[in-house]
């Protein structure tokens, strides 16, 4: 942890990366030829399996393909007009944003508090941290399956406890299921974001708190005027990952609800999958994939702008 977090200031600082001009640069130019090729495997790999499909998805959005016939055929704007006028897609879009906003509202305060808490008191930290991070080790499939069993209206934990308000049809009710999805998403991702905040808090200079307490600032005041502003970039990184993550959330919802009941949890990523791989409509599926890319990128850039110009490069990762 410490080593990871230590790198950001080092790379902007002077020192290591700045070569002495003159003699070295000549050597550089002769050496360069012998080192550049080492980037080729990674670049080629990513170009082939990352960049080409990204371009491909835009191309395929103008084509017709059922996924079974050998080749897609040209169609034009047909997929776009049919998707953009399809109420199912708009419902999925609204749902995606709804889940995005509510899971942000739930996860951010909890992660922030847990991050501050686990970064603080030595005594609890070690013991609790071990347990907090357990959900991070589980796959989305494992988590969903466990909660599906736990929330089963007939055989689940809630049902067999005999507490009436717990024994609801959590996954079968179109409204309740949304709470479940947001809860399970939070259960899975809060530990990760707590870790981010924990790392952020540990980087705040202790002197700031000492100075503030000498000036008589109470702890609540300290939290709002030191901790929160100092965590600005962590908040932006974490929010970007949450927001972009909800655009692409698939595994968890797919296994937990399969989009149901009805279409009540059919978020964009699921809508894409169901159209492309269940209904064999790769063209419309590609249109939705394009929308996911564009909206995700737009949101990431928007949050980056919120961070201001001095947002350091690690924010790129949220992109």
């Amino acid at each position, binding site marked *: 942890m410490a080593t*990871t977090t230590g790198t950001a200031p080092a790379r902007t600082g002077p020192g290591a990366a700045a070569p002495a001009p003159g003699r070295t640069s000549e050597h550089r130019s002769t050496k360069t030829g012998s080192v550049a090729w080492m980037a080729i495997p990674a670049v080629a790999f990513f170009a082939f399996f990352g960049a080409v499909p990204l371009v491909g998805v835009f191309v395929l959005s103008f084509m017709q393909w059922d996924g079974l016939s050998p080749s897609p055929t040209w169609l034009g704007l047909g997929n776009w007009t049919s998707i953009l006028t399809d109420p199912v897609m708009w419902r999925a879009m609204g749902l995606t944003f709804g889940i995005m906003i509510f899971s942000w509202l739930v996860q951010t305060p909890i992660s922030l508090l847990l991050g501050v808490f686990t970064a603080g008191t030595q005594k609890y930290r070690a013991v609790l941290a071990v347990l907090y991070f357990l959900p991070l080790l589980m796959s989305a*499939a*494992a988590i969903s399956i*466990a909660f599906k069993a736990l929330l089963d209206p007939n055989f689940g934990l809630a049902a067999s406890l005999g507490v009436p308000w717990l024994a609801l049809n959590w996954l079968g009710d179109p409204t309740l299921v949304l709470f479940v999805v947001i809860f399970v998403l939070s259960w899975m991702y809060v530990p990760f974001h707590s870790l981010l905040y924990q790392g952020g808090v540990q980087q705040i200079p202790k002197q700031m708190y000492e100075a503030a307490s000498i000036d008589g600032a*109470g702890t609540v005041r300290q939290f709002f005027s030191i901790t929160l502003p100092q965590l600005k970039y962590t908040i932006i990184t974490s929010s970007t990952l949450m927001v972009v993550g909800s655009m692409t959330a698939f595994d968890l919802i797919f296994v937990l609800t399969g989009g149901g009941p009805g279409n009540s949890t059919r978020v964009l990523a699921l809508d894409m999958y169901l159209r492309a791989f269940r209904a064999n409509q790769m063209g419309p599926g590609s249109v939705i994939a394009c929308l996911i890319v564009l909206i995700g990128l737009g949101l990431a850039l928007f949050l980056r702008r919120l961070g201001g110009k001095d947002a350091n490069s690690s924010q790129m990762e949220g992109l």
Partner: protein
Amino acid sequence: MATATDSSTRGATTSRSRSSKRPNWVGGLMGWVWLGVIVVPIYWIVITSLKPSSEYFTTNPLLPSASPTFDAYQLVLENDFARYFINSVLVTLGAVVPAVLISFMAAFAIVRGKSRFLRLSSGFLLMGLAVPLQATIIPLYLMIIRLQLYNSLLAVILPSIAFAIPLAVLVLGNFIRDVPNELFESMRLDGTSEWGTAWRLAFPLVRPAIVTVSIYTGLQVWNGFLLPLIFTDRQELRVLPLALWTFQGQYSVNVPAVLAAVVLSTLPIVVFYVIGRRQLVSGLTAGFSK
């Protein structure tokens, strides 16, 4: 001077230090509440997986069974668990090892070299961080079919490598930048090639970062669901998350067995967690920390 005020504030102001416990109290309350939220389901998963399937419906769900049994685990193991486990190991190793090695090479080249090609490569890979795997799945599917890789572990491995590269290059690059230039200079004066410098100087020095990146990538691939779901449909090629999902479909009534499968699929990572907790935790947030 600074230390004097430091110690005096700490020593003299008990009232203030009490007030400084207040956020701990708020955070602490949240800490304990969330602990319950995390621990209760996990506790329930574990104790239920140890119940006989007949007992499941009749006993208190929050009490461990009076006669715990590994029947559920046996059922899971009899359902080809070993094969799925091996598939998961193969896919994870097959993706992590090449991804980390070629990312290290690229990071080294980007940090050490100055050519236009390398600057472009660096920008290209940074932009790659913005490409979500899910959104490229349809063209990838077409490519996998065309490459005749459908229904092979390689179909899962190759895209996994590609999507691990951008973050790995970024994190490893940050660490290679921290290696003092004098060390590179002395290697150069000794007449060592860049290739030799990369593996004999930089690689050992950034080993902690290699471990971090490997763990991060490994967890992503181990827990990956979408690629195996779409690129394979043969039973003998299933990886653990996919096997878990189909197992749940078959045995949905046998809750202890389903939960035993959940436990078994997570167990290897938990063992890993117990052995190398610190590396794992730093690996989880890889390059995302400020």
